[in-house]
């Protein structure tokens, strides 16, 4: 009950955040975003046709009216039709978000789990060659552009110039085997890059935790390394780790991964969002921005609840 009350309270306090985010982004879309009119007109349009399109897109209505409509759409989760394809925005998101989730989740989960594992090893052997090796690898992962990693992995694992084990492009996923074939290389590329950032961050958190008195006490007590790391260090370092993971989720769910989707020919939400940004498809942008803001608020609530679960000293009041 306490938790439910807290969640409701927190959600209500999150509403100004949603309004702020949507207002600023809608302002940017309307006044600085691409003008969709000029994507939709024919080669030899007349001024009258331009005005007809502007009217249909609602560009000739006051900003306040349009913004209030946006809030109504967000409240009902009905964002109308894409200005580009004419398809219902909800249908587009229903079709693309699961694909992006299925694509990104393995890399996201493994990238974090492996990052934590490597960070534990690096922190435990701090200053040792193993630490330097892991940190060196992390710097490499962070330094190479994601685009280069994608192209290199595609050539190495998928193309005829390399091993050719996996498909270069596509998403013909109908069973588990298909799924593995299509998701492996994008996942490897995601992990390669994510590991660098994750390992460095988690190592810093864990190193800080390892310097605490209770860890020194446990060491002095002769606690085995595994128990020391997992029970005394990792458990107490969970708050920043949870924060990092939780705050990545809205981006993973809604934004997807544009580069991965483009280069591997995967029809996810990242590509749809990118196309909407570059062409000024406002119904899709409004949906993506609005849903991301709502998800952030939900994540904030869940984040606090998780804090409470891993650390009973945290109060939800």
């Amino acid at each position, binding site marked *: 009950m306490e938790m439910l009350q807290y969640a409701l309270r927190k959600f209500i306090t999150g509403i100004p955040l949603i309004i702020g985010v949507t207002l600023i982004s809608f302002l940017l879309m309307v006044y600085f975003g*691409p*003008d969709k*009119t*000029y*994507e*939709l*007109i*024919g*080669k*030899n*349009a*007349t001024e009258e*046709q*331009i005005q007809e399109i502007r009217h*249909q897109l609602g560009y000739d209505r006051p900003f306040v009216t349009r913004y209030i409509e946006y809030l109504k759409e967000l409240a009902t989760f009905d964002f109308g*039709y894409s200005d*580009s*394809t*004419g*398809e*219902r925005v909800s*249908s587009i998101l229903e*079709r*693309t978000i699961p*694909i992006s*989730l*299925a694509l990104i*989740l*393995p890399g996201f989960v493994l990238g974090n789990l492996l990052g934590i594992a490597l960070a534990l090893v690096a922190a435990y052997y701090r200053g040792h060659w193993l630490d330097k090796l892991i940190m060196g690898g992390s710097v490499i992962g962070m330094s190479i552009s994601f685009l280069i990693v994608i*192209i290199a992995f*595609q050539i190495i694992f*998928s*193309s*005829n*110039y390399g091993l*050719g084990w996996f*498909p*270069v*492009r*596509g*998403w*013909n*996923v*109908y*069973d*588990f085997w298909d799924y593995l074939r299509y*998701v492996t290389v994008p996942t490897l590329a995601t992990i390669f890059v994510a590991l660098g950032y994750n390992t460095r961050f988690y190592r810093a958190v864990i190193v800080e935790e390892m310097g605490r008195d209770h860890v020194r006490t446990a060491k002095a007590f002769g606690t085995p390394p595994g128990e020391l790391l997992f029970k005394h260090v990792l458990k107490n370092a969970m708050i920043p780790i949870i924060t990092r993971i939780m705050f990545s989720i809205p981006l993973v769910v809604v934004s997807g991964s544009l580069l991965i*989707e*483009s*280069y*591997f*020919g*995967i*029809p996810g939400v990242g*590509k*749809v969002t990118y*196309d909407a940004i*570059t*062409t*000024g498809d406002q119904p899709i942008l409004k949906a993506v921005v609005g849903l991301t803001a709502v998800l952030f608020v939900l994540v904030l609530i869940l984040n606090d609840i998780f804090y409470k679960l891993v650390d009973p000293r945290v109060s939800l009041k």
Partner: protein
Amino acid sequence: MSLRNTRLLFLLCLPLLLVACSDGPDTRGQKIYRPSLGGAPTSLDPVQSATVYANHVVVNVYDTLYAYKYLKRPYELKPNLAEGMPEVSEDGLTYIIRIQPDVHFIDDPAFPDGKGREVTAEDFVYSMKRHFDPKSRSQGNWLWAGKIRGMEEWKKAGADYAQEVEGLLALDRYTVQIRLTRPFPQLVHTLAQGFSAIVPHEAVDYYGREFSVHPVGSGPFRLQTFDSVRAVLVRNSGFRREPISLEFEGYDEAVHGKYGIAEIEGRIPPLVDRLEIHFIKESLSRWNSFTKGDEIQYATIPKELLDEVLAKKQPEVKLKPAYARRYFMSSGLENGFVHTDFNMKDPLIGYNEDKEREKRNHALRCAIRYAWDWAERNRTFYNDMGFVFPGIIPPVVPEYDPHASREALEHNPDKGRRLLEENGWTPENLPTLTLGGVASVDSRQMFEQFRGWLLRIGYPKEKINFDAYASFGDYNRAVKQAKIMIIGMGWGLDYPDAENTLQLFYGPNGSPGSNASNFNDPEYNRLYEKSSVMQPSLERTQIFRRMNEIVLDSCVTISGLSRKNIFLWHKDVVAFPDQSIVGGFYFRYVDVKEADR
């Protein structure tokens, strides 16, 4: 298993639950063709099929009255859904077109009882009217605007489909009558475009806005799935049976023999069961997929790999032996060209109330043209494979003059510098020039090259600027609002007739129309109006060439260059691809030697 482990397993399997919801299509034993295109369509509604990409899908799921012969070059029209070529009245104002009976739309829930009904003349009338209904957001109505009698009045009266349009009637179930306000010799070409594809009103009503992603036509294929990366089309089993006559389609053993096309003679299109059209902007990814062997079967060569793949680029394109063994190739000039226009509405460089200044502006434009180095542009950005020609009549149309003076292409900075001096231009009084373009590495590099050339005629560096636009939409808006001083443009021909490029400089087509330069020359306009109603003839060609000279003499554009297209396809595919004029029409004639295993 503990509850905790069960939860963990659920979480790990979540992605699979999300994706493994249905069985895949069983394609074993089917012939599948997997072409790729360098971009994606957004809408599959014929009235919005303005791009090459949309047309590739639209002309395969819908029928048009006419089409282009598969192999014939120069391009030649042929009847498609029409029974024959139109009967045209003596004055060129009335067209009678009979359509084939017993052609049906595909079965779809849009129809009562889900059964596709017969395509009739009324459907064509309805499909054309949609272009003038503001609700349809047509991108193709400019082709017929002001040309069909009564259409503008119909639109003004509220676009009520129950009301007849005087110039567009279904005389009976299978006969269409089009009455024009003035002769329009290119009409039949426009009836071979995706824009004029025939749609059933039931589907438009049933799907509403989403009709754009639920095509219901009578073409050789029907759409199965469509998203941002792929369109899957499957054979329309009810498609009419029309055996292929290669002779009729323009087969030439010397040109097409090596591609194995002879074996499709007498067969009934479509020849493959399934079309998977992949939309791939990323050229390297496209190439990797193409060379993989079991993925896409048709692509172009990324410019980064031209030297790696080609043994020879000019005058004839040749593959290196390793690639020639694995792939078929064809090459040819694009059906269009790139050019750079001056905005004549800008008094700093174009028309000016002060006639003396206007004269000096003319000299300034000509001097800039002398600074322009087409050979260097071709070498730097088009791998020295583009074809440079003087003016706005590109080499792919019959009206092109191979013997025309090439003076307008001359790169002569000294002459440019002299011209500036003779007309009183000094570094101090020269206007600041602004070249517009979509923000990209290529356009920035092109600008830097342009600036380098201008320095050679004495133009101060700080007076040459680049105006970058974030998206094509933004750039197009600035062009349509006549805000850009020097405009980098490209034009893809809608039909193989020079009228299509000459209209780009016709005064009344000025911004926001297609005349981006806002050129408005009385003699040019008069000649355009005279020639636009003429059937192709020697007289018309001479008028077209005269118009080309006027544009060149006015120094209103620096033009032009047609880029070279290179198409590659796998050797197990029997095809002769063409991306623009024939476009997607060729898919129905493609055969694949081996079925899916």
